[in-house]
């Protein structure tokens, strides 16, 4: 990538700033590699998926759904539904991609995740700087760490005799609990979240639908509640 000096400096700054987040991503990545290995995926398949899908929670959901025997379609729908928020993420920083050649737009959009997006917004709020180069610098570090750690997870998993006995199957439940806690924005979320919970429990516990569709129904029900409610 050809870069002038200030852009390179900004990219390196992004790469440095993202380090603590990358450590969290590495733990998450190892856990995903472990799950993927349990699903019978090779390290090559996992590395390819991590670099080119590059959306952690959707990868976990999709592989978990396939392992549960829900089928490819349910896995794809659940994974993509989880990624719909990225429309808002990239839309909210559309100035970053403005007036760039298509390959830079493609690379920049692909490298945008919750982590480097939030990091860049925080930097802008504090210092008034941080744009495309900062986002891409942080994004490249995240992609390298995510891809490497997921592959390591597969390799490490083959050395583990019984992941379930070690409780590693629970790593994703715990990870999503941490993420859901971080996404809680306060009382305004109460109505949508209760709606989601009620719909999921009713749909899945009653046996009306399979888990994957229960997740989608629950997500859509909560979001619809937020959409039609005037007070959230």
């Amino acid at each position, binding site marked *: 990538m050809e870069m002038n000096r200030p852009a390179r400096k900004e990219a390196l700054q992004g790469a440095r700033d993202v380090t603590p987040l990358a450590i969290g991503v590495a733990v998450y990545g190892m856990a995903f590699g472990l799950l993927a290995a349990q699903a019978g995926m090779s390290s090559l398949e996992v590395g390819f998926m991590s670099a080119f899908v590059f959306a952690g929670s959707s990868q976990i959901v999709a592989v978990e759904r*396939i392992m549960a025997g829900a089928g490819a379609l349910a896995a794809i729908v659940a994974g993509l539904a989880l990624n719909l928020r990225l429309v808002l993420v*990239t839309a909210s920083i*559309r100035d970053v991609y403005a007036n760039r050649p298509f390959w830079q737009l493609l690379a920049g959009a692909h490298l945008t995740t919750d982590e480097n997006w939030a990091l860049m917004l925080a930097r802008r709020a504090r210092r008034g700087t941080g744009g495309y180069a900062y986002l891409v610098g942080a994004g490249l570090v995240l992609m390298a760490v995510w891809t490497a750690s997921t592959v390591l997870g597969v390799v490490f998993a083959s050395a583990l005799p019984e992941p379930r006995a070690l409780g590693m199957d*629970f790593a994703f439940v715990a990870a999503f609990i941490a993420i859901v806690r971080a996404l809680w924005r306060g009382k305004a979320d109460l109505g949508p*979240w209760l709606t989601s919970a009620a719909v999921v429990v009713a749909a899945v516990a009653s046996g009306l639908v399979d888990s994957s569709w229960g997740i989608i129904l*629950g997500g859509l029900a909560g979001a619809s509640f937020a959409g039609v409610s005037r007070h959230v």
Partner: protein
Amino acid sequence: MSETHAAIAALLVGTLTIRLAGATLGQRLPTEGGWARALNALPGCLILSLVIVMLLNGGPREWFAAALALATAAVTKSLPATMAVGVAAVALLRHFV
């Protein structure tokens, strides 16, 4: 083409399309009103639904470990710490209880 390969290919194309759609067509999305509120609430609602489904597939040991994980998340706000506590708790509960 296996189920896994089909899923990877579709997720690759779909996710990149979603990211590009936001970057290029973002200005046409309403930034306020019902649609914006719904899309804002969607990630939390989806991940909450996923956690509930995972817990419905478990039993009392998993529910107790999940409560410990939630407490850890609330106190530390740390993903690695929450994962470590959750995994350790469920491993110990399955082994000893």
